[in-house]
Structures are given as structure tokens and as C-alpha cells.
């Protein structure tokens, strides 16, 4: 039993260390792609990532209306599965106008 288990455990420890090395190599490989996406997002003026395309407030959560998930009526249930995965951005929960919060901060 020891002949089998201990080498397996040692292999897993080596695998864990290798995953750290691999992560550094992969990061280097992905750097060009991320920079290209950054340039594209800057050129087009994109504000959100296209991960959830099912509803407008999940496609562009940072641009969503106030009350976006409850847009049909105030007690409406969430329609889209994504709405259960991500919470609305914090800034849309703040209904106070920005001029008042900035004045207070100043």
C-alpha cells in the first residue's frame, strides 16, 4: 500500500509545484492576447465583457438601469439565470445622485 500511496502523494506535491510554474508560463503566453483585447476595448470604448448575453442588464451590468433586474414591476422575480449568479453592481444600488455624494466627500 505504501509503495503505491506515497509515490502518488509525492507526485501530487510535484504536480502542485508544477502548476505554479505552468501558471507563470501561461500568463506570459496570454499577455499578448490580453493586451490586444485591451486595445480593442479601448478603440471601441467598450464598458463590459460579453460573458452573459441573455439580457441587457447582464450583458452590460455596469450600464444597467437602476432597478434593472426588477424592471417589470417592483416585486418582479428575477427572469434570467445569470441574475442569480451575479449580484447587481454596487453603484446601481446607490440611488443618490452623484453630485450629492461628491459634495459630501469633498
Amino acid at each position, binding site marked *: *500500500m*505504501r509503495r503505491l*500511496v*506515497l509515490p*502518488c*502523494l509525492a507526485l*501530487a*506535491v510535484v*504536480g*502542485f509545484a508544477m*502548476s505554479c510554474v*505552468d*501558471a507563470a508560463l501561461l*500568463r506570459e503566453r*496570454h*499577455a499578448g*492576447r*490580453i493586451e*490586444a*483585447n*485591451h486595445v*480593442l*476595448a*479601448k478603440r*471601441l*470604448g*467598450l*464598458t*463590459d*465583457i*460579453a*460573458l*452573459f*448575453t*441573455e*439580457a*441587457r442588464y*447582464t*450583458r*452590460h*451590468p*455596469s*450600464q444597467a*438601469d*437602476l*432597478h434593472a433586474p426588477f*424592471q417589470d414591476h417592483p416585486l418582479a422575480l428575477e427572469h*434570467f*439565470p445569470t441574475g*442569480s*449568479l*451575479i449580484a447587481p*453592481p*454596487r*453603484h446601481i444600488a446607490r440611488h443618490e*445622485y*452623484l*453630485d450629492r455624494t*461628491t*459634495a459630501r466627500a469633498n
Partner: protein
Amino acid sequence: MNIWIEQQRALIDFTLAALARRKARNLGLLAVYTLLVFVLASVALFSHALRHEATRVLADAPEIVLQRLVAGRHDLIPPGYLEKIGHIRGVQHVEGRLWGYYYDPVIKANYTFMAPGAGGIERGTIVIGAALERVRGLALDTGISFRAYSGKLYSFVVADILPHDSELVSADLVLMHEDDFRAFFAFPAGHYTDIALAVANPQEVRNIAAKLADALPDSRPILREEMLRTYASIFAWREGIVLAILSGAILAFGILAWDKAAGLSAEEKREIGILKAIGWETGDVIRMKLWEGVLISLTAFLGGYLAAYLHVFYADSMLFEPVLKGWAVLYPRFQLAPEIDGLAVATLFFFTVVPYTAAVLVPIWRAATTDPDAVMRS
């Protein structure tokens, strides 16, 4: 030192032999344990890498986006707003943005139509995201027709396809000429979806936003820092129903592990009694059980973490796709760069290895300190 190592090796040997006697039970526990670590580590690795990538890609998003609200809903920017904003001191650049949503009944998908301010797209042509190309079966120079909300049919030729590597930001994009966009959505001249602003002094962004809200009371400025914060907190541990579901699974596993570790079977008690009767010290028994806890929990942690690493960074988080896709038809194919949050991994390690190992020790210490004869008889 050598004697100590030899002692530990003998203890590990004995522990493994004891575990092998209850093979099915221990392997079952190890499998469930590994699976739980796999799910938790996958969520942690995926969400951290995604947060990191989103904040890097959107680092140069517009400094301020100004929306107009009518009756609490987003409305078009009417003519005159751009000029008013241009007069505000500190505003370096103002640009009206044209974008909107289109539902394609052919594949039941939502697209984001956009007319880039920089131009570069001929009239009658479109540039599309790679996910749209794949799902709609389009290719370069092929034609496609969309029925506008007015009922009129508009045809376009696919002039270019955005890079496949950019799907995370461009999966559903349809870029077109400004005139085509205005004609398609029947946008009145001089109207825009919203306004993007650049500010001369980044320190003044909040003050400019306050001036904007003051000068145009029906507007809503959204700052870049708010956009980035949206993604910095996406899938944060406190958010979403995933945590609610997972916490049930974690609790169930906790009960299972506690029951396994804390409750000694009659067989295990007898074993401890025999060991004590043949001369084992209480410390040896505890050390032996400590090794049992460490071996099981460490194997589960390492196995689960490595499987999660391969799942997220080599298998494109395929198990999450149905969950993240929801009801959407267009889903980007993307690979994430492995940005690993050391603190999250350390926390996962601590909460998977330490509690189980500790739970093993308490009943063993109680049994090991009792008289061997009493233990064997009980």
C-alpha cells in the same frame, strides 16, 4: 533525526495498512472530499482569473459614460447635450456613442449593435464577433439580413470578423457604419445612445461628474472606477446563489467528515486497545491517527486543486459553461490567463486540511488515554 524519520515511516506504513482494511469507506470519503475541493477550487480559480482579466481589458474604458434617464429608464441623448458638456471646464473630449441591442429570431440570440466612433467601416458592411460567426454560420464576404424594429429588411455584407481571441469582449458585437445604424434603428439625427467623456485631470473625475449631474439633472454619470468595481466584485464570495448552493454541499460534507472522523467505530476502538495493550504509547496512537487525517485531507486537497487547475485553464471551465450560459445562445469561447490568488489557495488549504485533521484527533485522544482493557471491553 534518522530514528524519528524511521518512526514516522513505520507509523505511515501502519496507518496505510489500517486504511486499506476499510478500503471502500475511505476511498468513498476521499472521492467526495476531492470532488468538493475540485468544485471550490474551480470557482476560486475561475472567478479570480476572470476578475483580473476583465479589469485589465477594461482598464481604459471611457472615464465617464453619461446616460439620460426618463422615468427611471435609459433614454436617448437629445441634440444639444454634447455642446453643453463640451463647455464644462476640465472635459477634454466628448463623444456621442451609438449602440443598442438586437434580438435575432433566427437563432434566438441577442446581439450588441454598435457604430464605432473611430469609423473605419464601409456603408452596407458589418464587422462581427467570432461567436456570432460560429453560431450564425457566417463567413467573410457573405451577406446577412436583419429585420429592423420598423419591419424593414436590411442586408449587410460581412467585411471582417473580430479575432477569435477577443470573444470575451466581442462575442456578440455587430459593428456597422453610423448611417446604417441610424437607419436600422430609426435613430433621429443628432441623437445618441449615451456619451463618453475623457477628463483632462484624472483626479477631477468625480468633480466633473458632479458638475455634469448638476448641469444636466436628468443624466446619470457612470465612472470608470464604478465599471471596474463591477468586475472586481463579480463572483465575489458573498455574491450569488452559487454560494448558497455550495454552502449546503459544504455543510453536508462537514457532517459526513465529522461523523467519520469524530465517531470511532467499535473496530477502531478495539484496535486502539490492542495497540495500547502491546505497548504503544498514547502519543504514538495520536501520531498514527494524525497521519491518517493528513494523508486523506492532503491527498484530497492536492487532487482536487490539480483537477480544478486543469479544468479552468486547460479545459476552458467546460463544466461551468451551462451554468454561465443561462438562457443565452451566444457564449464566448475563451481561455483565461492563470492569475492565482495565493490567499484563496491558502484559505482553501487551511479549511480542507486543518479541520479534518483536528476532528480526527479529539476522539482518538479520548480513546487513547483510557485504560486499554476498558477500551477493548467497550
